[in-house]
C-alpha cells in the first residue's frame, strides 16, 4: 500500500498512499488540528513578518527609500555586505575542505570532530562575541601586543568578521558532510584510477555532485552572516557609519523611536530571509527531480 521510499525521492512522493477508511481521524478532529496549527503559525510566523513590511511602508514609499538611502544606513549596508562576503568565502572554503576530509576518509575521532564543528550552533551569540573581546580587548591575552603595534581588531572590521565567521562556522560544512558521505568514494576512485589529479577529481567529479547542497549551505550561511546581531553587537562598539552593520543600525534606530526607519532597514533583511526560503524550496525541487 505504501509508495517505495527512494533516497532522493521528494517529500510528496514519500508520503504513504493513504487508505482513507482506516487511517483517517474524524473530520472534527482533523479540522481542529489544522485550525490550531494554522492559528499558531499565523501568530508566530505570519504576523511578525507582516508587521515588518506594514511598519516599513507605514508612511509610504518615499520615506521608506529615504530611510534606506540615509548615509548611516548605506554605510551599514556596505559593511554588512563586506563582512558577509568575507565570512561566507572563508566558511565556503572551510566547509569544502572539512567535508572532503570527513566524508572521503576513515579516521578515529571523526564523530567528535563533527561535534566540534557543530559547536558554534549551541553557543549563545553573546558568548561568540565575548571570546574575542577576551582575546583582543584592552585587558585581553593579545590586547597589549595589538595596542603596542597599533592593530585594531575589536571595534573594527577584523573583530566583526571573526565573530561572524565563528557564528556561521558550521553552516556550509554540515550541508555537505551528510551528502558527501552518502555519495561515497566510488566516483572519485574511478576518476583517480583513470589518471585524474586530486584537484581535477574535486572540480570535475565531487563539486558537480554537491553543487546544490553547497549553494544552499552558502545561502543559509549568508543569511545568518548578514543578520547576526548578538555576537557582532559585542565586538563592534556601535560606531555609527563605521562599525554598525544592518542589524545594529536597526537596533539604534528602534531605540531612538525612529520606528519607520528601523523597520525599513529590517524589511531589507526580511526580504533576504524570504528569498533564502524560496531558494531553498526551489533547490529542494531541483534535487528531487534530478
Amino acid at each position, binding site marked *: 500500500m505504501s509508495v517505495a521510499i527512494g533516497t532522493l525521492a521528494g517529500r510528496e512522493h514519500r508520503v504513504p498512499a493513504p487508505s482513507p477508511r482506516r487511517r483517517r481521524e474524524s473530520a472534527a478532529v482533523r479540522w481542529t488540528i489544522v485550525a490550531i496549527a494554522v492559528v499558531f503559525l499565523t501568530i*508566530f510566523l505570519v504576523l511578525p513578518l507582516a508587521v515588518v513590511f506594514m511598519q516599513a511602508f507605514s508612511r509610504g514609499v518615499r520615506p521608506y527609500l529615504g530611510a534606506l538611502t540615509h548615509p548611516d544606513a548605506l554605510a551599514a549596508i556596505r559593511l554588512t555586505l563586506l563582512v558577509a562576503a568575507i565570512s561566507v568565502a572563508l566558511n565556503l572554503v572551510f566547509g569544502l*575542505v572539512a567535508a572532503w576530509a570527513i566524508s572521503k576518509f576513515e579516521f578515529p575521532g571523526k564523530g567528535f570532530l563533527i561535534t566540534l564543528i557543530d559547536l558554534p550552533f549551541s553557543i549563545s551569540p553573546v558568548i561568540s562575541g565575548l571570546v574575542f573581546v577576551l582575546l583582543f580587548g584592552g585587558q585581553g591575552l593579545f590586547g597589549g601586543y595589538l595596542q603596542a603595534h597599533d592593530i585594531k581588531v575589536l571595534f573594527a572590521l577584523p573583530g566583526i568578521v571573526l565573530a561572524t565567521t565563528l557564528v556561521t562556522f558550521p553552516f556550509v560544512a554540515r550541508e555537505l558532510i551528510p551528502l558527501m558521505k552518502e555519495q561515497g568514494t566510488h566516483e572519485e576512485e574511478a576518476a583517480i584510477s583513470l589518471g585524474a589529479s586530486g584537484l581535477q*577529481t574535486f572540480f570535475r567529479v565531487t563539486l558537480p555532485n554537491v553543487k546544490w547542497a553547497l549553494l544552499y549551505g552558502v545561502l543559509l550561511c549568508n*543569511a545568518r552572516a548578514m543578520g547576526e546581531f548578538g555576537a557582532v553587537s559585542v565586538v563592534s562598539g556601535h560606531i555609527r557609519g563605521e562599525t554598525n552593520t544592518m542589524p545594529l543600525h536597526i537596533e539604534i534606530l528602534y531605540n531612538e523611536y525612529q520606528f519607520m526607519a528601523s523597520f525599513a532597514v529590517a524589511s531589507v533583511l526580511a526580504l533576504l*530571509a524570504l528569498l533564502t526560503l524560496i531558494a531553498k524550496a526551489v533547490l529542494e525541487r531541483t534535487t528531487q527531480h534530478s
Partner: protein
Amino acid sequence: MIPGFGITLGLTLSWLALIVLIPIAGLFLKSSELSLDQFWSIVSSRRSLHALQISFGLSLIAAAINLVFGTLIVWALVRYEFPGKRIFDAIIDIPFALPTAVAGIALTTLFAENGWLGSLLVPFGIKVAFTPLGILMALIFIGLPFVVRTVQPVLLDLEVELEEAATTLGASRLQIFTKVIVPIITPALLTGFALAFARAAGEYGSVIFIAGNLPNVSEIAPLLIVIRLEEFKYSDATALAVVMLLASFTLLFAINRLQQWSEVRTGS
C-alpha cells in the same frame, strides 16, 4: 587511493582551532584567573541567579510549548490537506532565516499594548511586551522550527503497515497514536525539544527588544553578560559565560546521544 587526506584534515583542524577552539579556550583560561569563591559569589549573586533562572526556566517552558504545538503542526502538515499548506510548510524556517533583531522588533510591535495582538489582550488585563511573557513569546518563535524539522522526517517515513496492522487488531486511532506512533517519534521529539531549549537559552537578539530588561524581573543571562562587559566587569561576564557554556556542552552531549538513539529507533 583518494589523495588529500593529510592536507584537508590538517587545514580543517587548524581552522577549527583558530576560529572556534582557541577563542573558547581563552574564555576558560580567563575564568581560571578567578578563585572558586570569587566565581561562586558572581554566579550565585541574586541578579545572576535570576537572569539564569529566567533564561533557562523560560526556555524550558518555551521548548515544552513548541513540543506540543510543533507536533500538532507536523501532524497537520504530514497527514492532512488544507489550503495554504505548502506556504505554511515553507515559512516554518522563518525563525532560522530572519535576523534575530528583525524578529525582536517585529514581535515587540505585534505584542505591544497598541499592537495587533497586544491590543486584543488588553481587555483581559494581559501584558505581553516588556514582561517575562514577552520573553516567552520570543523564545517560542525562535525554537519552533527545531521541533518541526526534527519530527517531520520521522513522521513522513513512518510505515503505514504498522498502523494498518494495529487497526486490523482492533486498536482505536487514539490507541494507535499513543501506543504505536508516539514511541516511534519519541527520540525525535526529545531531540527537537533539546535543540529548541538549547537555542532559546542562549538567545539574545529576538528577546532584548520585547523583554523590558528589568534586573531581577525580565533580564536574561546573555543580556547580563553584555551589561557586565559594558561595565568593564570582565570577570563577571566570563563567569556567567562559563556557566552558560557548560550548560550548552551538556545539552550538546545529550542531543548527540538522543540522535544516536533516534537513528537506532528509526533504523536509518
